[in-house]
């Protein structure tokens, strides 16, 4: 089933909105996800990511706008959407009182997969997520990482075209996170499956996603590849360097360089420069030192992060928002 949609567009979201009483959780959001793409929704808790994913997976009806998923309208043809998507919700929804094999087997039956095919598919998926040896273990006995892998296996039982992962690594230890990342990368590599994931981890979005939409207060404030998003932040690369001896005209020599946006003297012939060109600026600085026959005692380049992007577009840092609202409510995000 996991073949790319013929149009090349897996998900087409058109002015979708969701209101809970006075709260506009998602406000006229539009975007498209290409087939075979890993698309990330990045934002803090409460930004509207989970509400958005719940609307796209037909769990929550929108109050405005609509979307097509795998070519089917989420409002008018929800069952066709459900047949073509796999969902790994933010909350663990596997049954703790069933074994791993039973959890997958019963989910297979919900997709109409029965008999020998069901047994084969269960074994294949347990093997794929590295849980074959825990097939008969109760889900309640699994670690957080294993349970998340079980959830992923369950979401793949019917070989969906599009996989939705709502904060797939939240609450996992670093080793389990890396394991889930590898699995996500592998899933895209297989048959060009499309993945849409939400996260509030910058490194996760940066590492996994082809394109990232930055979500804040129910709106998409920026959408592009991680590289392009970082490049869109003016002067966001920071370079710190020390000359020996100091430059003849000090900061003025540095300000004359085309790559340099601003200079701050830190004392002891040390300067902090902001630049649009990132690491490429380093060559100009080396050439400057040579021209004045100075020694470059130290030079460090700090690249733009998605945190800088988030700060640039929203006016506040992602980590501070996440700390301020650590527990998303059910039905909202």
């Amino acid at each position: 089933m996991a073949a790319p949609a013929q149009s090349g567009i897996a998900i087409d979201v058109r002015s979708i909105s969701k209101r809970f009483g006075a709260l506009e959780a998602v406000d006229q959001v539009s975007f498209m996800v290409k087939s075979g793409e890993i698309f990330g929704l990045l934002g803090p808790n409460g930004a509207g990511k989970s509400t958005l994913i719940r609307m796209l997976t037909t769990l929550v009806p929108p109050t405005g706008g609509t979307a097509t998923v795998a070519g089917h309208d989420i409002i008018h043809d929800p069952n066709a959407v459900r047949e073509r998507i796999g969902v790994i919700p933010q909350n663990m929804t596997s049954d703790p009182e069933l074994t791993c094999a039973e959890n997958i087997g019963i989910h297979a039956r919900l997709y109409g997969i029965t008999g020998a095919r069901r047994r084969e598919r269960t074994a294949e998926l347990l093997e794929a997520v590295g849980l074959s040896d825990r097939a008969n273990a109760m889900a309640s006995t699994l670690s957080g990482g294993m349970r998340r892998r079980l959830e992923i296996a369950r979401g793949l039982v019917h070989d969906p075209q599009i996989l939705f992962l709502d904060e797939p690594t939240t609450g996992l230890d670093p080793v389990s996170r890396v394991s889930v990342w590898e699995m996500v990368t592998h899933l895209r590599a297989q048959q060009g499956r499309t993945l849409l994931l939400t996260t509030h981890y910058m490194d996760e979005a940066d590492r996994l996603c082809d394109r990232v939409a930055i979500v804040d207060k129910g709106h998409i404030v920026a959408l592009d590849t991680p590289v392009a998003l970082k490049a869109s932040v003016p002067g966001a690369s920071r370079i710190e360097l020390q000359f020996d001896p100091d430059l003849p005209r000090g900061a003025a020599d540095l300000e004359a360089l085309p790559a340099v946006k601003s200079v701050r003297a830190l004392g002891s012939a040390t300067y902090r420069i902001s630049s649009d060109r990132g690491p490429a600026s380093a060559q100009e600085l080396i050439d400057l030192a040579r021209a004045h026959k100075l020694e470059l005692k130290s030079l460090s380049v700090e690249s733009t992060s998605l945190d800088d992007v988030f700060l640039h577009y929203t006016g506040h840092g992602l980590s501070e928002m996440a700390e301020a609202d650590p527990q998303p409510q059910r039905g909202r995000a």
Partner: protein
Amino acid sequence: MKRALALVERDMRKFRRSPALLFASLVLPLVQLVILGNAFGGNIKNVMLGVVNLDHGPESVDVIERVRAVGANARTFLPVDYVDQGVAIGDLRKGELGAVLIIPQHYSRDLLEQHQPRLALITDNTDRSTAGAVDDQMTQLVASINAPQVASREPGQAALDVVEVYPYINYIKYLLPGSVALAIFVMSMIGGGLLFIDDKSRGLHEGYMVTPITKWELILGFNLSGSIKAFIAGETVLVLGAVVADIPNFFEPIRLIELTLMVILTSIALIGMMFFLMARINDPLVPRAIFGVLNTLLFFPSGAVYPIAGFPQWLRWMSAGDPFTYAVHGFRTLLLKDVGISAIGTDVFALALTSTVVLAGATLLFRRTL
């Protein structure tokens, strides 16, 4: 339909693994059957009766002999002689006596002179059952004193012979139908309503709702699995209870089939009612808060422990609207009267109507979205 069976499979696997759930749903009805069945409905015996004889004449001795005869045979009461009336009444108030019989002064003389002397029976009416039993026994005793020694030549007096149409039915047999209905209800609450809300609050329903299972299949799956569990509980209490209560000819095949059909119908009605009540509930504390009240509201007005004929009018109306009433009546008719399914047409209709109404209501209320 196939997808609904996935929910049934899930519930049956979990049910098989939690014998505690079955045990819990069976224990209350069976314990109630055995304890209440033996505690109520027995003959009252060994009530301490203080006897104060202020007469000491021959007729008072006759009364005391008759009282002692009851104490030695029927043992409804055990006479204790008192000299002082005040001491006897004081002991009655302290609970050391159940009743006090006072034979007044000049009782023998007044009786012989046909002045209609009056014996006094003072009872502890905080316990109406015991007081009533002593009252009945003493009334018979006084009637025997008044009975003529020689047959009257007056025209014959009418008498009433009571013939019971069924073999003797003790209280445990009377209670069994209510216990079967209660077992089904307890399983409907724990294995139906409570499990449904707990699964919902744990997010398990979200896992099903992202699959292509339809609203109808979800409703069918939840109700079918709940009804199967309620049926297992009801049928188990029916069989064990019938053995404990010694129901005659219980294992007669036709009767067993009729009773089983009644268990199935009751299970569907009560699970449907539970699903209807829980369709819009999300907070797992709500069912825990209402189930105790619901049990009282449905079980006691049903006639399970006391005949509806003894209820005030408002409670009879409540009984008429209580599906439990029809389940209890149906089980009682099949278990104690053994008159076949034709005698429970009203009960079957009421339970089928309840099932239809609550399932239709639940379908309207149930939302397939979060």
